[in-house]
């Protein structure tokens, strides 16, 4: 026989907040939270108070005023009558452009240098370690300035291309290297030009599909289809056919010397090139070390096993070692990409108008709205960095070890 009694109802008493271990942790956390909130409230109100005393009020209204200044590289339409917000966007796009170019180039350089640092060839190995040590241990600002100064000092000014017997001439009559940047031909799309582009893109997709199909076939049946030339043919032949069938709707606009500068074509600014290469070779040196670490983390047995199956060394690297090494390489790679994006703010050293140059430079200066501009600047960089992190984390989870 049993008598069931209700379990004793715990009644909550205020003293339990301190005496009962179940609640004490919460009490202290709450106190800590209040302290932190108070600290921030103090800092915030102090800031607001001092700003008011100095006669400054936080207002973002200046973003709607005309910017009144010009920018030398604009990826979207911009003139000096557009507002400061538009100028900031031009800066954001310039930041994104140089970061994107530098990330790609740094990755390529880094992977090559990292693999070659483990080469069996003594000379190659030593050259790569010199590269890594030299570039990793000198501040990136110095590299930016060195490259920019060398470009302005060594390359000819546009006026050197002038005259009957010019001191400098264009490469293939189409590309001009000057100390103001590189002028390259610009494709002009006439009616039908976009059709050619579309066919070409479809061809590229088709080429990848073919490679996939061939790989599947190889794994399923052991039948080896040729890979290289059919893929190339699928990518290019239809596009070329359409190009000629539509009467060559894409033409090139060559840069030509007119007035003070080259006109026509696309001008890749010297400041962009300097910043791009400096960031790429500097960060490339770090990535090389990551890649080396990643490769060394793959156990030797893996490559020995692959070798015993008869795979050649570069196939071992591509098919066995690198895919496993990626698990180690990708997480630090994300932070290097973020570093490139943030280091691109050194652009002002060479007069490249990135976000720091437009919003954090000229706009800040001409409007005197320092706090608002810096806050916006922080928000922009934060957004860019978090986006890069998010994208790279998705990639990371796709290469990371699948645990089941």
């Amino acid at each position, binding site marked *: 026989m049993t008598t069931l009694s209700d379990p004793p109802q715990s009644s909550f008493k205020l003293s339990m907040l301190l005496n009962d271990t179940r609640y004490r942790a919460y009490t202290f956390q709450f106190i800590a939270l209040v302290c932190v909130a*108070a600290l921030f409230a*103090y800092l915030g*109100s*102090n800031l607001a*108070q*001092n700003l*008011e*005393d*100095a*006669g*400054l009020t936080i207002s973002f209204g200046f973003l709607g005023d005309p910017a*009144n*200044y*010009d*920018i*030398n590289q604009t990826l979207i339409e911009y003139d*000096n*009558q557009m507002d400061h917000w538009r100028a900031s966007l031009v800066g954001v796009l310039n930041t994104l452009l140089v970061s994107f170019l530098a990330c790609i180039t740094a990755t390529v350089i880094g992977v090559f240098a990292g693999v070659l640092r483990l080469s069996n060839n003594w000379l190659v190995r030593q050259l790569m370690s010199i590269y890594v040590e030299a570039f990793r241990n000198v501040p990136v600002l110095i590299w930016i300035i060195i490259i920019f100064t060398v470009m*302005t*000092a060594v390359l000819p*000014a*546009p*006026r050197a291309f002038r005259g009957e017997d010019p001191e400098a001439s264009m490469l293939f009559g189409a590309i001009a290297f000057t*100390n*103001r940047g590189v002028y390259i031909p610009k494709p002009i799309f006439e009616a039908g030009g976009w059709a050619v582009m579309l066919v070409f893109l479809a061809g590229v997709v088709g080429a990848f599909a073919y490679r996939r199909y061939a790989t599947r076939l190889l794994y399923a049946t052991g039948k080896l289809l040729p890979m290289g030339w059919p893929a190339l043919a699928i990518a290019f032949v239809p596009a070329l056919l359409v190009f000629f069938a539509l009467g060559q709707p894409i033409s090139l606009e060559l840069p030509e010397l*007119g*007035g*003070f*500068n080259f*006109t026509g074509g696309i001008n890749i600014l*010297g400041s962009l090139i300097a910043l791009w290469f400096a960031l790429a070779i500097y960060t490339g040196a770090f990535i090389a070390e990551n890649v080396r670490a990643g490769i060394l983390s793959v156990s030797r047995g893996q490559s020995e096993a692959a070798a015993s199956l008869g795979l050649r060394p570069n196939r071992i690297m591509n098919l066995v070692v690198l895919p496993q090494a990626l698990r180690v390489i990708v997480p630090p790679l994300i932070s290097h990409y973020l570093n490139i994006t943030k280091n691109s703010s050194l652009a*002002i*050293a060479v*007069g490249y*108008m990135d976000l720091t*140059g437009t919003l954090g*430079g*000229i706009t*800040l*200066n*001409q*409007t*005197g709205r*320092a706090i608002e501009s810096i806050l916006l600047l922080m928000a922009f960089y934060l957004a860019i960095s978090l986006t890069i992190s998010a994208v790279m984390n998705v990639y990371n989870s796709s290469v990371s070890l699948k645990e089941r």
Partner: protein
Amino acid sequence: MKKTVFLGALTVAGLAAGAASAQTLSDVQERGTLNCGVTTGLVGFAAPDANGEWDGFDVAVCRAVAAAVLQDPTAVEFVPTTGKTRFTALASGEIDMLARNTTWTFTRDVDLKFEFVGVNYYDGQGFMVPKALGVSSATELAGATVCIQTGTTTELNLADYFRRNNMEYTPVPIETNAEAQQQYLAGACDVYTTDASGLAATRAAFENPGDHVVLPEIISKEPLGPLVRHGDNEWGDVVRWTLNALIAAEEYGITSTNIEEMATNGSPEVKRILGTEDELGSKLGLDAEWARRAIAAGGNYGELFARHIGESTPIGLSRGLNAQWTDGGLLYAPPFR
């Protein structure tokens, strides 16, 4: 309830801080040095000389103020500022005054909350090009690449000028005068634009100044002058009247050599300036001989001009608009009375 008390205390603290910012004069006297913002280096206006001493036309204004306030023209801490950092430096209190060929504009005076105390150089924006380009007028500059110091009024004038004349151009933004010079000489830009006085000073520092010409067009008004923070009128008055004393001294013929003689034998106005009649100095919170020391520090306005940027110097600027009103210029010091 508690929060209200907390915020109330903050308000009191904030008010105290606000009051403290209005005592620049006593702060400077207590510190014993004047923090004066100058350029990072523009020969003739402000640049370190061979001995590492700052020297130049703008520097002389700092020294005159230090002489008036601290009895010692060398008691100046020079803070080099770029076009971008100068206003933050002044607004934050890092410097007490800014004497850095800064253009007096509405926005800077009203919106940025500064106080321009006068004009020590009437300037205008000009263009410099290499002679080899064969350009004789700024209207022929369509399509040119232009080096420009970022964060200056010249940047906006340039955009206005090319827009008004329907010309295209490529701006090359540059941080300091030295970098601009390097870029310009390497041919990375066709044109360098800044205040005409700055162009003259930069050109004077070239190896072959004769290979470069300053174009005749002056595209803007650039009244350059020293400035202080808004809200401390006493300090503003000290700097304003020190500058006026230098200008008035030239008008009345007070020079660094005859100053003692003028103090005893000069006209009543001269005696008031030099402190032998009336007590103008005490009204500024200074002693009677403040202006005498300021003038003795480097001479009157005309002497400073001639020594640092005048026609006998490599910079070779003529007085032009910067002559006394009696000589057809714009310099006109209000009466000392």
